[in-house]
């Protein structure tokens, strides 16, 4: 019956309570700092830079008082994919990627030639390192931030853009409703799967049965989306009946208050991003 337990396997907004600087950080500052650090990881192509980033990501895990094994949970299922990625990069890039780079390894068999250049080797290492760094950073962020804090933070950060007609409050409400609806829809999906199963429907089947899989899924997916839309219509009526008027003039129960300690994190992250982008790393 394991296949029907959808609700239990959902990992959204997994908060790990702890008393750390990152947990106490103002969500606005934390979102900004996270964006800056993610940008630093995304745009650093050098080996030395990625070594610095890996050290920084590990430091973040430490500061957040999150067990390293917990932050790295996503790594185990990803190992085969990382290997696949590395093999693909090694086999196919060859001289097409940076032709000026020196050849490290060459192998020829009949018409097949495999060339591995130093640039490709560097690319493999950087891709893997970047994945681990982003895994750590995003884990620390999701494990140290509650979903309510996140939506409050998004709303507050978007508020200055209201003049550009960006609906800050409405967007935060979209996120809140979406997160709230996921368990409801998971229950409905379970119900639909059980209903199908009780009528002899079967799920699963290997990767060679693509068409069968799709035919099994459609009787679940179509009613699921229709159910979501119908629940949505009910919610629309409920909100209109209660005269929901959007964000203008609305006050909040929780008011975010940030101190210098919070903005210090943003400054450190910004300085870090600037250092990563401007530093002349040798490799």
């Amino acid at each position, binding site marked *: 019956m394991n296949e029907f337990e*959808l609700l239990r396997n*959902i990992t*959204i907004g997994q908060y790990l309570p702890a008393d750390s600087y990152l947990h106490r950080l103002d969500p606005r500052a934390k979102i900004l700092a996270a964006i800056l650090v993610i940008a630093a990881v*995304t745009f650093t192509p050098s080996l030395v830079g990625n070594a610095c980033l890996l050290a920084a990501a590990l430091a973040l895990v430490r500061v957040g008082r999150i067990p390293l094994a917990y932050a790295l949970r*996503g790594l185990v*299922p*990803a190992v085969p*994919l990382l290997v696949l*990625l590395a093999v*693909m*990069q090694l086999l*196919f*890039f060859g001289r*097409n990627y940076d032709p000026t780079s020196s050849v490290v390894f060459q192998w020829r068999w009949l018409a097949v030639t495999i060339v591995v250049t130093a640039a490709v080797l560097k690319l493999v290492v950087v*891709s*893997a390192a*970047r*994945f681990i760094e*982003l*895994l750590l950073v*995003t884990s620390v962020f999701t494990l140290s931030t509650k979903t309510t804090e996140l939506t409050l933070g998004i709303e507050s950060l978007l508020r200055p853009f209201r003049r550009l*007609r960006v*609906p800050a409050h*409405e*967007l935060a*409400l*979209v*996120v*809140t*409703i*979406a*997160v*709230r*609806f*996921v368990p409801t*829809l*998971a229950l409905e999906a379970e119900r639909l799967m059980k209903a199908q199963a009780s009528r002899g429907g079967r799920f699963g089947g290997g*990767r*060679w049965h*693509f068409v069968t899989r*799709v035919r099994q*899924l*459609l009787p*679940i*997916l*179509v009613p*699921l*989306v*229709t159910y*979501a*839309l119908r*629940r*949505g219509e009910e*919610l629309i009526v409920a*909100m*209109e009946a209660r005269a*929901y*008027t*959007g*964000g203008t003039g609305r006050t909040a129960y929780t008011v975010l208050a940030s101190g210098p300690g919070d903005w210090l994190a943003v400054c450190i992250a910004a300085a870090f991003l600037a250092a990563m982008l401007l530093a002349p790393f040798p490799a």
Partner: protein
Amino acid sequence: MQDAGRGALSIRGIVISAVLAAVAILLGATRVGFIPTPTGIAATIMHVPAIIGGVLEGPVVGAIIGTIFGVYSFFYATVPMFKDPIVAIAPRIFIGIFAAWTYWSLRRMSELWAIVLAAIVGTATNTVLVLGFGVARHYLPAKVAWVVGITHGIPEVVVAVILSVAVLLPWKRAHRGQARARV
């Protein structure tokens, strides 16, 4: 909707974005949205809610659903290529926008074909942009991207078309009062 005129999101826009984004998150979180294929890389239908949202409520709603789907898939990705915000988030914003534009420009001709083409365009946007950014960021060599695009793009298009038509056509008819019970 009175607040639609103010440029803000209408109540309908907020709720439909939210429930369809929840469907996309659910499909990702439960792995129901990934269909294993013989090549080992799963085909996805997680982008279909963005297409449906774009067709029902327009490009803004489609873009919001796509963005939430993209951010979710970035945060919870286990595939190295999707742990890159440029590959995971940026392409997804455009799925609903292009699907909505396609639907709007064609709906006067035929409701059915407008939905079919919106689903095709939306899925193609996802496949082409994700693989394109993947190549640009050196996760995939161009040759591999072409092969993946053909072996996965086509089944994804077929599933997306079936799902979009099956959901949207009766929904639109029911809301226009054209639906008839058929036995």
